[in-house]
């Protein structure tokens, strides 16, 4: 039987294997080991959700706990990358990019271009994304669209453990800066993961379900909601292609367009807020390039244009649901 790992374990294994493979790889972040300077255990946390647990003792000197100082350490990771290292910086929550965004979008993203192609910045910034953790407005956002907007950055958001390992390894080996978004509600979800190292190329969407009636394009946690919706729709005789984009920049337009040209119907599902989102981006692309194939208006299912609320009663209706997706698909079918 093939081995199963949770996404948390898969990410840990990817970091472990890449550090073992390449001495220029090291990881840094707030509390990625934890317990520094205290009188208790080192590696007390292994990251706030235990993703990096165990790496500190396994790779001495290569798991660097940082001060709570995102600008400085994310910038230092970027600077080290420009000097030939391959650092993986953990930003904990992607929401914290507010305090270090300059380093990401004005420095890392721009070096290659503004230095006339003569710089490479192979840095990975890992961060948790997404709602559903009762973590309220500043620890729950799906800010993937903001990074996707910026030329020079690559944006990755896996939906399962297998993809997480392969995409993280690719991110580390990639020579461009990568924002690696980990949905915190997927950490515990298990899939089969090979023990060996492997890299999943960017810009290759995963078609996780085939169907000829409609195309659902999504990524991250929403892949699971879309699959639930597609299962429910199948019982009503509606078969959907479900496309997991996996990487948002670069993005696999061909898979999306091929599918829509076949199905003629598109529903974009995005946990981000609706304006200038991945959903609106995909919608615009399809409307431009595959308009003649469309048999119905494009559907979009996203979070509302609000911050993420705290109360479970509100957060649960903030996150797009399988029912909403299912309804949106049926609307495109004229039902």
């Amino acid at each position, binding site marked *: 039987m093939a081995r199963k790992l949770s996404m948390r374990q898969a990410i840990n294994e990817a970091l472990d294997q890449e550090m073992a493979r390449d001495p220029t790889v090291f990881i840094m972040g707030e509390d990625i080991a934890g317990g520094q300077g205290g009188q208790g255990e080192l590696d007390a946390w292994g990251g706030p959700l235990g993703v990096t647990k165990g790496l500190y003792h396994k790779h001495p000197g290569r798991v660097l706990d940082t001060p709570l100082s995102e600008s*400085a350490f994310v910038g230092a990771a970027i600077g080290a990358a420009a*000097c030939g*290292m391959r650092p993986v910086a953990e930003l904990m929550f992607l929401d914290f990019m507010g305090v270090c965004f300059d380093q990401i979008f004005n420095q890392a993203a721009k070096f290659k271009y503004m*230095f*006339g*192609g003569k710089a490479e910045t192979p840095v990975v910034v890992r961060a948790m994304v997404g709602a559903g953790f009762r973590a309220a407005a500043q620890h729950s956002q799906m800010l993937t669209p903001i990074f996707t907007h910026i030329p*020079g950055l690559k944006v990755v958001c896996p939906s399962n453990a297998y993809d997480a390992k392969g995409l993280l390894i690719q991110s580390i080996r990639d020579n*461009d800066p990568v924002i690696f978004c980990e949905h915190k509600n997927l950490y515990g979800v298990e899939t089969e993961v090979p023990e060996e190292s492997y890299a999943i190329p960017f810009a290759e969407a995963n078609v996780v379900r085939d169907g000829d009636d409609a195309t659902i394009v999504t990524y991250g946690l929403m892949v699971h909601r879309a699959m639930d919706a597609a299962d429910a729709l199948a019982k009503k005789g509606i078969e959907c292609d479900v496309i997991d984009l996996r990487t948002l920049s670069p993005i696999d337009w061909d898979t999306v367009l091929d599918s829509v040209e076949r199905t003629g119907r598109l529903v974009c599902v995005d946990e981000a807020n609706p304006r200038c989102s991945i959903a609106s981006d995909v919608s615009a692309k399809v409307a431009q390039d595959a308009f003649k194939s469309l048999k119905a208006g494009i559907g979009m299912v996203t979070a509302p244009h609000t911050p993420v609320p705290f109360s479970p009663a509100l957060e649960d209706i903030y996150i797009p649901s399988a029912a909403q997706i299912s309804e949106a698909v049926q609307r495109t079918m004229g039902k």
Partner: protein
Amino acid sequence: MAKNPFPLSKEKLLDAYRTMRTIREFEERLHTEFAKGEIPGFVHLYAGEEAAGTGIMMHLTDKDRIASTHRGHGHCIAKGVDVKSMMAEIFGKAAGACRGKGGSMHIADLSKGMMGANGILGAGAPLACGAGLAAKYRGDGGVGISFVGDGASNQGTFLESLNLAAVWNLPVIFVVENNGYAESTHRDYAVAVDSYVDRAAGFGLPGVTVDGTDFFAVYETAGEVIKRAREGGGPSLLECKMVRFYGHFEGDQQLYRGKGELEDIRANRDCIKLFASRIVEAGVVTPKELEKIDREAAQLIEEAAAFAKSAPPPAPAELLTDVYVSY
């Protein structure tokens, strides 16, 4: 010739002079070309501050990295970036150091350890920490140097970097080029505690203030702080008190200057004149030797300007290249 009393050989003294003269010629040329409307955008000139960049950079090799500021031409030249390609870059030409995609504020040459001028004030400090971290991780004895102006030293990035460098004991030197003005605002207004040594002390780093117009003061002090960092002695801060001959950017009328201030600094605090008179009076070099360098520097800049002006602009296809290594 008298016995050389300086801590540098005659050859090195002449090198220092040549670097400073080249920077001065470069900046003065930009000043006139800008006034003629030949240069797109805007430029920030390093004239008057040459001794600091030169005195520090003479201790560095290509494996040492610097993160520069918006006022980065002098740092580039002192770090060994090709002057012609710099000039072409500032004119926005394909032959530019960054193929015309960066301009004055983004000249970089990583092969020379020049991690880029930077249009974002204070942004270089974390990058220099990264360079120091890489050097420390590799154990190659390299250092990272962060240049920051007195104005940008108020940025959180700079202060966070002081802390990070101290916590990780990084081989990083924070050089505060204190020319007294953050754009048009005097540091007395904008810096609550107008002492960078105090700031360093607040983070547990040793800080030193030197007269940035005195090449030898900068050279000797920089030598000590860089040696300390290379040997694992950790980060430090070097404040160079200096003067800016031109405005914040070209076109700045400098109405904020006190009466006679500019005339005074040009007459009495010109670091190149001070350096030249010191080495001539000591009898180590002759005025003729310096004049020859003056002519060569002028010639070099003349050639660079002619090259830059006649060079073709980037092809339209260049718009779309160099965004990613692969995409």
